[in-house]
Protein backbone atom coordinates (compact mmCIF):
# COMPACT_ATOMS: atom_id res chain seq x y z
CA UNK A 1 0.00 0.00 0.00
CA UNK A 2 1.55 3.29 -1.00
CA UNK A 3 0.86 6.42 0.93
CA UNK A 4 -0.82 9.12 -1.14
CA UNK A 5 1.43 12.14 -1.50
CA UNK A 6 -1.43 14.48 -0.60
CA UNK A 7 -1.42 13.14 2.91
CA UNK A 8 1.96 14.65 3.79
CA UNK A 9 1.24 18.27 4.61
CA UNK A 10 3.65 18.35 7.54
CA UNK A 11 7.25 19.40 6.93
CA UNK A 12 9.74 16.64 6.23
CA UNK A 13 11.42 15.04 9.22
CA UNK A 14 14.71 16.78 8.55
CA UNK A 15 13.29 20.27 8.71
CA UNK A 16 11.52 19.83 12.02
CA UNK A 17 13.71 20.09 15.05
CA UNK A 18 13.21 17.56 17.79
CA UNK A 19 11.78 14.72 15.73
CA UNK A 20 14.78 12.48 15.66
CA UNK A 21 12.92 9.17 15.82
CA UNK A 22 14.97 7.42 13.19
CA UNK A 23 14.57 7.40 9.43
CA UNK A 24 11.12 8.43 8.16
CA UNK A 25 9.00 6.97 10.94
CA UNK A 26 5.75 7.88 9.21
CA UNK A 27 6.35 5.43 6.41
CA UNK A 28 6.44 2.48 8.73
CA UNK A 29 3.20 0.54 8.51
CA UNK A 30 1.80 -1.67 11.21
CA UNK A 31 1.57 -4.69 8.93
CA UNK A 32 -0.39 -7.16 11.06
CA UNK A 33 -3.22 -4.75 11.96
CA UNK A 34 -3.51 -3.47 8.41
CA UNK A 35 -3.62 -6.95 6.88
CA UNK A 36 -6.09 -8.21 9.50
CA UNK A 37 -8.41 -5.28 8.83
CA UNK A 38 -8.13 -5.75 5.07
CA UNK A 39 -9.08 -9.42 5.43
CA UNK A 40 -12.04 -8.38 7.56
CA UNK A 41 -13.09 -5.83 4.95
CA UNK A 42 -12.75 -8.47 2.22
CA UNK A 43 -14.99 -10.87 4.16
CA UNK A 44 -17.59 -8.15 4.70
CA UNK A 45 -17.54 -6.95 1.10
CA UNK A 46 -17.53 -10.41 -0.51
CA UNK A 47 -21.32 -11.01 -0.63
CA UNK A 48 -21.88 -7.41 -1.71
CA UNK A 49 -19.37 -7.80 -4.54
CA UNK A 50 -21.03 -11.07 -5.46
CA UNK A 51 -24.51 -9.58 -5.74
CA UNK A 52 -23.21 -6.73 -7.89
CA UNK A 53 -21.65 -9.23 -10.31
CA UNK A 54 -24.42 -11.82 -10.16
CA UNK A 55 -27.04 -9.21 -11.06
CA UNK A 56 -25.34 -8.83 -14.44
CA UNK A 57 -25.81 -12.49 -15.29
CA UNK A 58 -28.61 -13.95 -17.31
CA UNK A 59 -30.44 -17.01 -15.98
CA UNK A 60 -28.25 -19.48 -17.82
CA UNK A 61 -24.99 -17.66 -17.03
CA UNK A 62 -25.82 -17.73 -13.31
CA UNK A 63 -25.39 -21.47 -13.08
CA UNK A 64 -22.79 -21.97 -15.79
CA UNK A 65 -20.13 -19.26 -15.54
CA UNK A 66 -17.65 -18.66 -12.73
CA UNK A 67 -19.20 -16.81 -9.82
CA UNK A 68 -17.08 -13.68 -9.98
CA UNK A 69 -17.18 -13.28 -13.74
CA UNK A 70 -19.59 -10.59 -14.93
CA UNK A 71 -22.39 -11.59 -17.28
CA UNK A 72 -24.32 -9.91 -20.05
CA UNK A 73 -27.86 -9.85 -18.76
CA UNK A 74 -28.09 -6.80 -16.49
CA UNK A 75 -30.39 -4.76 -18.75
CA UNK A 76 -32.57 -7.78 -19.34
CA UNK A 77 -32.74 -8.57 -15.60
CA UNK A 78 -33.67 -4.98 -14.90
CA UNK A 79 -36.51 -4.92 -17.43
CA UNK A 80 -37.71 -8.35 -16.19
CA UNK A 81 -37.79 -7.05 -12.63
CA UNK A 82 -39.58 -3.93 -13.84
CA UNK A 83 -42.17 -6.03 -15.64
CA UNK A 84 -42.70 -8.51 -12.81
CA UNK A 85 -46.31 -8.16 -11.67
CA UNK A 86 -46.56 -4.61 -13.10
CA UNK A 87 -43.57 -3.30 -11.20
CA UNK A 88 -44.64 -4.47 -7.76
CA UNK A 89 -40.92 -4.38 -6.84
CA UNK A 90 -40.92 -0.56 -6.94
CA UNK A 91 -44.06 -0.58 -4.84
CA UNK A 92 -42.13 -2.59 -2.21
CA UNK A 93 -39.23 -0.15 -2.28
CA UNK A 94 -41.65 2.77 -1.93
CA UNK A 95 -43.38 1.04 0.97
CA UNK A 96 -40.07 0.45 2.74
CA UNK A 97 -39.15 4.11 2.30
CA UNK A 98 -42.54 5.18 3.65
CA UNK A 99 -42.37 2.87 6.68
CA UNK A 100 -38.78 3.80 7.44
CA UNK A 101 -38.96 7.59 6.95
CA UNK A 102 -42.30 8.15 8.67
CA UNK A 103 -41.66 5.56 11.37
CA UNK A 104 -38.21 6.91 12.18
CA UNK A 105 -39.46 10.52 12.27
CA UNK A 106 -42.28 9.69 14.68
CA UNK A 107 -39.99 7.48 16.71
CA UNK A 108 -37.36 10.20 17.04
CA UNK A 109 -40.01 12.70 18.14
CA UNK A 110 -41.36 10.40 20.85
CA UNK A 111 -37.84 9.43 21.95
CA UNK A 112 -36.62 13.03 22.17
CA UNK A 113 -39.59 14.06 24.32
CA UNK A 114 -39.23 11.09 26.66
CA UNK A 115 -35.43 11.20 26.78
CA UNK A 116 -35.41 14.93 27.55
CA UNK A 117 -37.96 14.50 30.34
CA UNK A 118 -36.04 11.59 31.87
CA UNK A 119 -32.75 13.49 31.73
CA UNK A 120 -33.73 16.97 32.94
CA UNK A 121 -36.54 16.58 35.45
CA UNK A 122 -36.58 15.02 38.90
CA UNK A 123 -40.02 13.57 39.39
CA UNK A 124 -41.76 10.69 41.09
CA UNK A 125 -41.67 7.45 39.16
CA UNK A 126 -38.77 8.56 36.96
CA UNK A 127 -36.54 5.53 37.48
CA UNK A 128 -39.50 3.14 37.42
CA UNK A 129 -40.66 4.55 34.09
CA UNK A 130 -37.16 4.34 32.64
CA UNK A 131 -36.64 0.76 33.79
CA UNK A 132 -40.05 -0.38 32.53
CA UNK A 133 -39.28 1.18 29.13
CA UNK A 134 -35.88 -0.52 29.03
CA UNK A 135 -37.41 -3.91 29.86
CA UNK A 136 -39.19 -3.47 26.53
CA UNK A 137 -35.80 -3.98 24.81
CA UNK A 138 -35.62 -7.48 26.20
CA UNK A 139 -38.97 -8.60 24.84
CA UNK A 140 -38.48 -10.85 21.83
CA UNK A 141 -40.31 -9.23 18.90
CA UNK A 142 -42.30 -12.36 18.04
CA UNK A 143 -43.67 -12.47 21.55
CA UNK A 144 -45.02 -8.98 21.13
CA UNK A 145 -45.96 -9.40 17.50
CA UNK A 146 -48.47 -12.22 17.92
CA UNK A 147 -50.66 -10.48 20.51
CA UNK A 148 -50.09 -7.18 18.65
CA UNK A 149 -51.49 -8.91 15.59
CA UNK A 150 -54.51 -10.18 17.53
CA UNK A 151 -55.17 -6.78 19.08
CA UNK A 152 -54.81 -4.94 15.77
CA UNK A 153 -57.14 -7.53 14.25
CA UNK A 154 -59.71 -6.54 16.89
CA UNK A 155 -59.30 -2.94 15.76
CA UNK A 156 -59.57 -4.07 12.13
CA UNK A 157 -56.13 -2.67 11.36
CA UNK A 158 -54.18 -5.77 10.31
CA UNK A 159 -53.03 -5.89 6.71
CA UNK A 160 -52.86 -2.09 6.65
CA UNK A 161 -49.97 0.38 6.64
CA UNK A 162 -50.85 1.22 10.25
CA UNK A 163 -50.17 -2.35 11.37
CA UNK A 164 -46.51 -2.03 10.38
CA UNK A 165 -46.07 1.62 11.32
CA UNK A 166 -47.69 1.94 14.76
CA UNK A 167 -45.90 -0.85 16.70
CA UNK A 168 -42.50 0.50 15.62
CA UNK A 169 -42.87 4.09 16.81
CA UNK A 170 -41.85 3.49 20.40
CA UNK A 171 -38.27 2.28 20.54
CA UNK A 172 -36.96 1.65 24.07
CA UNK A 173 -33.42 1.87 22.70
CA UNK A 174 -34.23 5.25 21.12
CA UNK A 175 -35.50 6.56 24.45
CA UNK A 176 -32.37 5.27 26.16
CA UNK A 177 -30.08 6.99 23.64
CA UNK A 178 -32.08 10.23 23.80
CA UNK A 179 -31.79 10.27 27.57
CA UNK A 180 -28.01 9.96 27.33
CA UNK A 181 -27.75 12.71 24.68
CA UNK A 182 -30.05 15.06 26.57
CA UNK A 183 -28.12 14.56 29.80
CA UNK A 184 -24.82 15.26 28.02
CA UNK A 185 -25.88 18.07 25.68
CA UNK A 186 -28.39 20.15 27.64
CA UNK A 187 -26.84 21.84 30.70
CA UNK A 188 -29.19 22.27 33.67
CA UNK A 189 -28.36 25.97 34.09
CA UNK A 190 -29.41 26.71 30.50
CA UNK A 191 -32.83 25.23 31.25
CA UNK A 192 -32.92 27.19 34.51
CA UNK A 193 -32.01 30.41 32.69
CA UNK A 194 -34.88 29.82 30.29
CA UNK A 195 -37.24 29.49 33.24
CA UNK A 196 -35.92 32.73 34.74
CA UNK A 197 -36.76 34.47 31.50
CA UNK A 198 -40.31 33.21 31.88
CA UNK A 199 -40.29 30.73 29.03
CA UNK A 200 -42.72 27.83 29.29
CA UNK A 201 -41.37 24.28 29.65
CA UNK A 202 -42.49 23.48 26.11
CA UNK A 203 -40.78 26.57 24.72
CA UNK A 204 -37.56 25.72 26.58
CA UNK A 205 -37.67 22.26 25.04
CA UNK A 206 -38.37 23.32 21.44
CA UNK A 207 -36.22 26.48 21.36
CA UNK A 208 -33.28 25.62 23.60
CA UNK A 209 -32.98 21.89 24.30
CA UNK A 210 -34.00 20.43 20.95
CA UNK A 211 -31.35 22.27 18.88
CA UNK A 212 -28.70 21.11 21.35
CA UNK A 213 -29.86 17.51 21.02
CA UNK A 214 -29.83 17.45 17.20
CA UNK A 215 -26.58 15.49 16.65
CA UNK A 216 -27.79 12.76 18.98
CA UNK A 217 -31.26 12.76 17.47
CA UNK A 218 -29.81 12.26 13.99
CA UNK A 219 -28.33 9.03 15.32
CA UNK A 220 -31.65 7.98 16.86
CA UNK A 221 -33.35 8.68 13.53
CA UNK A 222 -30.80 6.70 11.52
CA UNK A 223 -30.84 3.84 13.99
CA UNK A 224 -34.62 3.59 13.76
CA UNK A 225 -34.55 4.05 9.99
CA UNK A 226 -32.22 1.08 9.59
CA UNK A 227 -34.16 -1.00 12.14
CA UNK A 228 -37.48 -0.41 10.35
CA UNK A 229 -36.02 -0.82 6.85
CA UNK A 230 -34.46 -4.14 7.91
CA UNK A 231 -37.47 -5.42 9.85
CA UNK A 232 -38.93 -8.61 8.53
CA UNK A 233 -40.88 -10.28 11.30
CA UNK A 234 -43.51 -7.62 11.97
CA UNK A 235 -44.63 -7.13 8.35
CA UNK A 236 -44.37 -10.92 7.87
CA UNK A 237 -46.95 -11.37 10.60
CA UNK A 238 -49.12 -8.33 9.91
CA UNK A 239 -49.47 -8.24 6.13
CA UNK A 240 -51.02 -10.56 3.58
CA UNK A 241 -51.61 -8.12 0.71
CA UNK A 242 -48.32 -7.94 -1.17
CA UNK A 243 -49.04 -4.40 -2.39
CA UNK A 244 -48.22 -3.25 1.16
CA UNK A 245 -45.07 -5.37 1.59
CA UNK A 246 -41.77 -3.72 2.44
CA UNK A 247 -38.78 -4.78 0.35
CA UNK A 248 -37.56 -7.42 2.85
CA UNK A 249 -40.85 -9.29 2.72
CA UNK A 250 -41.13 -8.82 -1.04
CA UNK A 251 -37.70 -10.36 -1.67
CA UNK A 252 -38.54 -13.21 0.69
CA UNK A 253 -41.71 -14.11 -1.22
CA UNK A 254 -39.85 -13.78 -4.51
CA UNK A 255 -37.20 -16.23 -3.25
CA UNK A 256 -39.89 -18.61 -2.03
CA UNK A 257 -41.45 -18.66 -5.49
CA UNK A 258 -38.01 -18.93 -7.04
CA UNK A 259 -37.56 -22.31 -5.35
CA UNK A 260 -40.17 -23.63 -7.78
CA UNK A 261 -39.28 -21.49 -10.79
CA UNK A 262 -35.50 -20.99 -10.90
CA UNK A 263 -36.02 -18.36 -13.61
CA UNK A 264 -37.03 -16.06 -10.77
CA UNK A 265 -33.59 -16.39 -9.16
CA UNK A 266 -32.14 -13.72 -11.43
CA UNK A 267 -34.98 -11.43 -10.36
CA UNK A 268 -34.28 -12.12 -6.68
CA UNK A 269 -30.59 -11.35 -7.15
CA UNK A 270 -31.14 -8.18 -9.17
CA UNK A 271 -33.79 -7.15 -6.66
CA UNK A 272 -31.44 -7.75 -3.73
CA UNK A 273 -28.73 -5.69 -5.45
CA UNK A 274 -31.05 -2.74 -6.01
CA UNK A 275 -32.40 -3.01 -2.45
CA UNK A 276 -28.90 -2.71 -1.02
CA UNK A 277 -28.09 0.49 -2.93
CA UNK A 278 -30.23 3.01 -0.99
CA UNK A 279 -28.94 2.04 2.45
CA UNK A 280 -25.33 1.77 1.36
CA UNK A 281 -25.62 5.17 -0.34
CA UNK A 282 -27.21 6.58 2.80
CA UNK A 283 -24.33 5.26 4.88
CA UNK A 284 -21.67 6.66 2.58
CA UNK A 285 -23.31 10.08 2.51
CA UNK A 286 -24.03 10.42 6.20
CA UNK A 287 -20.83 8.99 7.59
CA UNK A 288 -19.26 12.42 7.00
CA UNK A 289 -21.31 14.05 9.68
CA UNK A 290 -22.63 11.06 11.54
CA UNK A 291 -20.15 9.98 14.13
CA UNK A 292 -20.31 6.20 14.37
CA UNK A 293 -19.35 6.59 18.01
CA UNK A 294 -22.77 7.98 18.80
CA UNK A 295 -24.33 4.68 17.83
CA UNK A 296 -23.03 2.93 20.89
CA UNK A 297 -24.39 5.65 23.17
CA UNK A 298 -21.00 7.10 23.95
CA UNK A 299 -20.97 10.88 24.12
CA UNK A 300 -17.75 12.78 24.27
CA UNK A 301 -17.81 15.70 26.62
Amino acid at each position, binding site marked *: MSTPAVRTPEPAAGTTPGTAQGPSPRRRIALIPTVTLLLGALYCLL*PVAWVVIASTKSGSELFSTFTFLPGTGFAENLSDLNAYRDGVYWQWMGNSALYAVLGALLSTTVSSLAGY*ALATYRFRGRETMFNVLLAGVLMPPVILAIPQYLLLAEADLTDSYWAVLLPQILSPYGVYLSRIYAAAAVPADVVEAGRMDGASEWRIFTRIALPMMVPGLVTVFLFQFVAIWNNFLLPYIMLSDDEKFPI*TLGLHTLLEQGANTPALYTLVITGAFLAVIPLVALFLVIQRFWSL*DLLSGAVKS
Partner: protein
Amino acid sequence: MTTARRRAYGVKGAPYAFLLPAAILFALFFALPIGYAVWLSFRKVKVSGLGLGSGARREVWAGLENYTAALTDGELLDGALRVLGYGCIVVPVMLGLALLFALMLDSEKVRLAPFTRLAIFLPYAIPGVVAALLWGFLYLPDVSPFHFALDRLGLPQPDLLDGGPLYLALSNIAVWGGTGFNMIVIYTSLRSIPAEVHEAARLDGATPLQIALRIKIPMVAPSLVLTFFFSIIATLQVFSEPTTLKPLTNSVSTTWSPLMKVYQDAFGKGDIHAAAAQATIIALVTLLLSFGFLRAANRRQKQEAAR
Protein backbone atom coordinates in the same frame (compact mmCIF):
# COMPACT_ATOMS: atom_id res chain seq x y z
CA MET B 1 -46.77 34.99 43.32
CA THR B 2 -49.49 33.58 41.12
CA THR B 3 -47.19 33.34 38.12
CA ALA B 4 -44.55 31.68 40.25
CA ARG B 5 -47.03 29.12 41.48
CA ARG B 6 -48.37 28.54 38.00
CA ARG B 7 -44.85 28.06 36.75
CA ALA B 8 -44.00 25.63 39.53
CA TYR B 9 -47.15 23.69 38.72
CA GLY B 10 -46.20 23.73 35.03
CA VAL B 11 -42.74 22.39 35.82
CA LYS B 12 -44.26 19.64 37.91
CA GLY B 13 -46.60 18.51 35.19
CA ALA B 14 -44.17 18.96 32.29
CA PRO B 15 -42.21 15.68 32.56
CA TYR B 16 -45.43 13.69 32.61
CA ALA B 17 -46.70 15.56 29.57
CA PHE B 18 -43.41 14.93 27.73
CA LEU B 19 -43.57 11.25 28.60
CA LEU B 20 -47.23 10.86 27.64
CA PRO B 21 -46.76 9.77 23.99
CA ALA B 22 -44.18 7.15 25.03
CA ALA B 23 -46.41 5.96 27.87
CA ILE B 24 -49.47 5.61 25.64
CA LEU B 25 -47.51 3.71 22.99
CA PHE B 26 -45.94 1.53 25.67
CA ALA B 27 -49.35 0.69 27.12
CA LEU B 28 -50.88 -0.06 23.71
CA PHE B 29 -48.06 -1.91 21.98
CA PHE B 30 -46.01 -3.42 24.82
CA ALA B 31 -48.00 -3.82 28.06
CA LEU B 32 -51.36 -4.70 26.54
CA PRO B 33 -50.00 -7.33 24.09
CA ILE B 34 -47.90 -8.94 26.83
CA GLY B 35 -50.88 -9.08 29.16
CA TYR B 36 -53.05 -10.42 26.37
CA ALA B 37 -50.50 -13.12 25.48
CA VAL B 38 -50.29 -14.26 29.09
CA TRP B 39 -54.09 -14.35 29.34
CA LEU B 40 -54.37 -16.33 26.09
CA SER B 41 -51.79 -18.81 27.30
CA PHE B 42 -54.15 -19.90 30.09
CA ARG B 43 -57.06 -20.43 27.69
CA LYS B 44 -57.93 -23.06 25.13
CA VAL B 45 -60.61 -23.76 22.54
CA LYS B 46 -63.05 -26.44 23.53
CA VAL B 47 -64.77 -28.18 20.66
CA SER B 48 -68.02 -29.93 21.44
CA GLY B 49 -69.74 -32.38 19.14
CA LEU B 50 -68.41 -32.18 15.61
CA GLY B 51 -67.27 -28.62 16.05
CA LEU B 52 -69.98 -27.31 13.74
CA GLY B 53 -72.49 -24.54 14.33
CA SER B 54 -72.28 -21.60 16.68
CA GLY B 55 -71.25 -22.36 20.22
CA ALA B 56 -69.57 -25.59 19.21
CA ARG B 57 -66.16 -23.96 19.63
CA ARG B 58 -65.86 -22.19 22.93
CA GLU B 59 -62.86 -20.62 24.63
CA VAL B 60 -62.44 -22.03 28.11
CA TRP B 61 -59.94 -21.79 30.97
CA ALA B 62 -57.07 -24.20 30.45
CA GLY B 63 -54.96 -23.64 33.56
CA LEU B 64 -51.40 -24.76 32.98
CA GLU B 65 -52.35 -27.22 30.25
CA ASN B 66 -50.72 -25.22 27.45
CA TYR B 67 -47.55 -24.84 29.50
CA THR B 68 -47.19 -28.55 30.26
CA ALA B 69 -47.87 -29.28 26.59
CA ALA B 70 -45.19 -26.78 25.51
CA LEU B 71 -42.60 -28.04 27.98
CA THR B 72 -43.15 -31.69 27.04
CA ASP B 73 -43.17 -30.88 23.31
CA GLY B 74 -40.05 -32.34 21.75
CA GLU B 75 -40.08 -29.84 18.85
CA LEU B 76 -39.73 -26.79 21.10
CA LEU B 77 -36.91 -28.39 23.07
CA ASP B 78 -35.14 -29.47 19.87
CA GLY B 79 -35.40 -25.92 18.58
CA ALA B 80 -33.96 -24.59 21.83
CA LEU B 81 -31.03 -27.01 21.58
CA ARG B 82 -30.39 -26.03 17.95
CA VAL B 83 -30.34 -22.36 18.90
CA LEU B 84 -28.03 -23.15 21.82
CA GLY B 85 -25.57 -24.84 19.46
CA TYR B 86 -25.88 -21.97 17.00
CA GLY B 87 -25.33 -19.41 19.77
CA CYS B 88 -22.22 -21.24 21.01
CA ILE B 89 -20.68 -20.60 17.59
CA VAL B 90 -22.04 -17.13 16.85
CA VAL B 91 -21.42 -15.25 20.10
CA PRO B 92 -17.74 -16.14 20.72
CA VAL B 93 -16.74 -15.88 17.05
CA MET B 94 -18.59 -12.61 16.45
CA LEU B 95 -17.36 -10.89 19.61
CA GLY B 96 -13.85 -12.30 19.18
CA LEU B 97 -13.65 -10.85 15.68
CA ALA B 98 -15.24 -7.57 16.82
CA LEU B 99 -12.65 -7.23 19.61
CA LEU B 100 -9.81 -8.18 17.27
CA PHE B 101 -10.81 -5.63 14.63
CA ALA B 102 -11.40 -2.93 17.25
CA LEU B 103 -7.92 -3.48 18.71
CA MET B 104 -6.38 -3.41 15.23
CA LEU B 105 -8.18 -0.16 14.40
CA ASP B 106 -6.89 1.30 17.65
CA SER B 107 -3.28 0.31 16.99
CA GLU B 108 -0.70 2.78 15.81
CA LYS B 109 0.33 3.35 12.22
CA VAL B 110 -2.46 1.23 10.82
CA ARG B 111 -3.26 2.06 7.21
CA LEU B 112 -6.67 2.33 5.54
CA ALA B 113 -8.40 2.39 8.93
CA PRO B 114 -11.36 4.57 7.83
CA PHE B 115 -12.00 2.41 4.77
CA THR B 116 -11.81 -0.93 6.57
CA ARG B 117 -13.87 0.38 9.47
CA LEU B 118 -16.64 1.38 7.10
CA ALA B 119 -16.40 -1.86 5.10
CA ILE B 120 -16.65 -4.03 8.22
CA PHE B 121 -19.55 -1.93 9.50
CA LEU B 122 -21.38 -2.07 6.15
CA PRO B 123 -23.27 -5.37 6.73
CA TYR B 124 -25.16 -3.59 9.52
CA ALA B 125 -26.98 -1.65 6.79
CA ILE B 126 -28.03 -4.81 4.99
CA PRO B 127 -31.31 -6.42 6.10
CA GLY B 128 -31.02 -9.90 7.64
CA VAL B 129 -33.26 -11.24 4.90
CA VAL B 130 -31.02 -9.90 2.15
CA ALA B 131 -27.88 -11.11 3.99
CA ALA B 132 -29.34 -14.61 4.28
CA LEU B 133 -30.33 -14.47 0.64
CA LEU B 134 -26.84 -13.43 -0.54
CA TRP B 135 -25.05 -16.04 1.55
CA GLY B 136 -27.69 -18.63 0.63
CA PHE B 137 -26.71 -18.25 -3.01
CA LEU B 138 -23.02 -18.33 -2.14
CA TYR B 139 -23.68 -21.67 -0.43
CA LEU B 140 -25.63 -23.16 -3.36
CA PRO B 141 -23.39 -25.77 -5.00
CA ASP B 142 -24.17 -24.59 -8.55
CA VAL B 143 -23.35 -20.96 -7.82
CA SER B 144 -20.84 -21.05 -4.97
CA PRO B 145 -17.28 -19.87 -5.61
CA PHE B 146 -16.17 -22.10 -2.72
CA HIS B 147 -17.52 -25.18 -4.48
CA PHE B 148 -15.89 -24.02 -7.68
CA ALA B 149 -12.52 -23.61 -5.95
CA LEU B 150 -12.79 -26.93 -4.09
CA ASP B 151 -13.76 -28.66 -7.31
CA ARG B 152 -10.71 -27.29 -9.15
CA LEU B 153 -8.49 -28.39 -6.29
CA GLY B 154 -10.02 -31.86 -6.43
CA LEU B 155 -11.27 -31.62 -2.86
CA PRO B 156 -14.62 -32.88 -1.58
CA GLN B 157 -17.36 -30.26 -1.54
CA PRO B 158 -19.47 -30.34 1.61
CA ASP B 159 -23.11 -29.40 1.35
CA LEU B 160 -23.21 -26.24 3.42
CA LEU B 161 -26.97 -26.29 3.62
CA ASP B 162 -27.34 -29.66 5.31
CA GLY B 163 -26.60 -31.34 8.63
CA GLY B 164 -23.72 -30.01 10.72
CA PRO B 165 -22.43 -27.49 8.17
CA LEU B 166 -25.86 -25.85 8.22
CA TYR B 167 -25.03 -24.53 11.70
CA LEU B 168 -21.84 -23.05 10.36
CA ALA B 169 -23.67 -21.61 7.36
CA LEU B 170 -26.29 -19.93 9.55
CA SER B 171 -23.73 -18.80 12.12
CA ASN B 172 -21.64 -17.23 9.39
CA ILE B 173 -24.59 -15.06 8.32
CA ALA B 174 -25.05 -13.81 11.89
CA VAL B 175 -21.31 -13.22 12.38
CA TRP B 176 -21.14 -11.35 9.07
CA GLY B 177 -24.09 -9.15 9.99
CA GLY B 178 -23.17 -8.42 13.61
CA THR B 179 -19.39 -8.08 13.83
CA GLY B 180 -19.23 -4.49 12.55
CA PHE B 181 -21.75 -3.11 15.00
CA ASN B 182 -20.04 -4.73 17.98
CA MET B 183 -16.66 -3.61 16.66
CA ILE B 184 -17.86 0.02 16.73
CA VAL B 185 -19.14 -0.32 20.30
CA ILE B 186 -15.84 -1.79 21.50
CA TYR B 187 -13.76 0.63 19.42
CA THR B 188 -15.62 3.58 20.92
CA SER B 189 -14.73 2.54 24.42
CA LEU B 190 -11.13 1.81 23.41
CA ARG B 191 -10.88 5.37 22.15
CA SER B 192 -12.08 6.73 25.48
CA ILE B 193 -9.07 5.25 27.30
CA PRO B 194 -6.72 8.18 28.05
CA ALA B 195 -3.60 8.01 25.91
CA GLU B 196 -1.33 8.45 28.95
CA VAL B 197 -2.35 5.01 30.18
CA HIS B 198 -0.76 3.04 27.36
CA GLU B 199 1.85 5.73 26.80
CA ALA B 200 3.18 4.92 30.27
CA ALA B 201 3.06 1.19 29.64
CA ARG B 202 5.01 1.60 26.41
CA LEU B 203 7.68 3.62 28.13
CA ASP B 204 7.96 0.74 30.60
CA GLY B 205 8.75 -1.47 27.62
CA ALA B 206 5.42 -3.26 27.16
CA THR B 207 4.80 -4.74 23.69
CA PRO B 208 1.62 -3.87 21.78
CA LEU B 209 0.29 -7.37 22.55
CA GLN B 210 0.91 -6.92 26.27
CA ILE B 211 -0.73 -3.51 26.19
CA ALA B 212 -3.78 -5.02 24.46
CA LEU B 213 -4.09 -7.96 26.85
CA ARG B 214 -3.19 -6.29 30.16
CA ILE B 215 -4.53 -2.76 29.68
CA LYS B 216 -6.92 -2.31 26.79
CA ILE B 217 -9.08 -5.44 27.13
CA PRO B 218 -9.64 -5.07 30.90
CA MET B 219 -10.54 -1.40 30.40
CA VAL B 220 -13.18 -2.15 27.77
CA ALA B 221 -14.67 -5.02 29.82
CA PRO B 222 -17.94 -3.10 30.46
CA SER B 223 -18.61 -2.71 26.76
CA LEU B 224 -17.71 -6.37 26.17
CA VAL B 225 -20.31 -7.29 28.79
CA LEU B 226 -22.85 -5.10 27.00
CA THR B 227 -22.17 -6.56 23.56
CA PHE B 228 -22.20 -10.08 25.00
CA PHE B 229 -25.57 -9.41 26.60
CA PHE B 230 -27.18 -8.03 23.44
CA SER B 231 -25.67 -10.80 21.30
CA ILE B 232 -27.22 -13.48 23.50
CA ILE B 233 -30.63 -11.83 23.29
CA ALA B 234 -30.35 -11.49 19.51
CA THR B 235 -29.26 -15.12 19.20
CA LEU B 236 -32.23 -16.40 21.19
CA GLN B 237 -34.49 -14.52 18.81
CA VAL B 238 -33.09 -15.82 15.53
CA PHE B 239 -35.91 -15.97 13.01
CA SER B 240 -35.48 -14.20 9.69
CA GLU B 241 -32.21 -15.85 8.55
CA PRO B 242 -33.36 -19.51 8.83
CA THR B 243 -36.78 -18.49 7.48
CA THR B 244 -35.09 -16.97 4.43
CA LEU B 245 -32.79 -19.95 3.85
CA LYS B 246 -35.74 -22.36 4.05
CA PRO B 247 -36.64 -22.17 0.33
CA LEU B 248 -33.03 -23.06 -0.60
CA THR B 249 -32.77 -26.24 1.45
CA ASN B 250 -34.86 -29.01 2.90
CA SER B 251 -32.91 -29.15 6.15
CA VAL B 252 -34.37 -26.00 7.69
CA SER B 253 -37.69 -27.09 9.14
CA THR B 254 -40.56 -24.74 9.95
CA THR B 255 -39.72 -25.27 13.61
CA TRP B 256 -35.93 -24.84 13.36
CA SER B 257 -35.76 -22.15 16.06
CA PRO B 258 -38.16 -21.70 19.02
CA LEU B 259 -39.55 -18.48 17.56
CA MET B 260 -40.21 -20.21 14.23
CA LYS B 261 -42.11 -22.87 16.18
CA VAL B 262 -44.19 -20.15 17.88
CA TYR B 263 -44.92 -18.58 14.52
CA GLN B 264 -45.79 -21.95 13.00
CA ASP B 265 -48.21 -22.82 15.82
CA ALA B 266 -49.86 -19.39 15.79
CA PHE B 267 -50.26 -18.87 12.06
CA GLY B 268 -49.60 -22.26 10.46
CA LYS B 269 -51.74 -24.34 12.78
CA GLY B 270 -53.86 -21.48 14.08
CA ASP B 271 -53.39 -22.54 17.70
CA ILE B 272 -52.79 -19.16 19.29
CA HIS B 273 -53.15 -20.52 22.80
CA ALA B 274 -50.30 -22.99 22.44
CA ALA B 275 -48.24 -20.27 20.71
CA ALA B 276 -48.96 -17.79 23.51
CA ALA B 277 -47.80 -20.28 26.16
CA GLN B 278 -44.57 -20.98 24.25
CA ALA B 279 -44.00 -17.27 23.71
CA THR B 280 -44.46 -16.64 27.43
CA ILE B 281 -41.96 -19.38 28.28
CA ILE B 282 -39.39 -17.93 25.86
CA ALA B 283 -39.93 -14.43 27.27
CA LEU B 284 -39.47 -15.72 30.84
CA VAL B 285 -36.30 -17.60 29.92
CA THR B 286 -34.97 -14.47 28.17
CA LEU B 287 -35.72 -12.28 31.19
CA LEU B 288 -34.24 -14.78 33.64
CA LEU B 289 -31.06 -15.10 31.58
CA SER B 290 -30.80 -11.33 31.15
CA PHE B 291 -31.25 -10.46 34.80
CA GLY B 292 -29.05 -13.33 35.95
CA PHE B 293 -26.35 -12.16 33.59
CA LEU B 294 -26.66 -8.49 34.53
CA ARG B 295 -26.55 -9.32 38.25
CA ALA B 296 -23.48 -11.47 37.80
CA ALA B 297 -21.80 -8.72 35.76
CA ASN B 298 -22.70 -6.09 38.37
CA ARG B 299 -21.39 -8.21 41.23
CA ARG B 300 -18.09 -8.71 39.44
CA GLN B 301 -17.79 -5.00 38.76
CA LYS B 302 -18.46 -4.21 42.41
CA GLN B 303 -15.89 -6.76 43.53
CA GLU B 304 -13.34 -5.23 41.21
CA ALA B 305 -14.18 -1.72 42.37
CA ALA B 306 -13.83 -2.83 46.01
CA ARG B 307 -10.41 -4.27 45.36
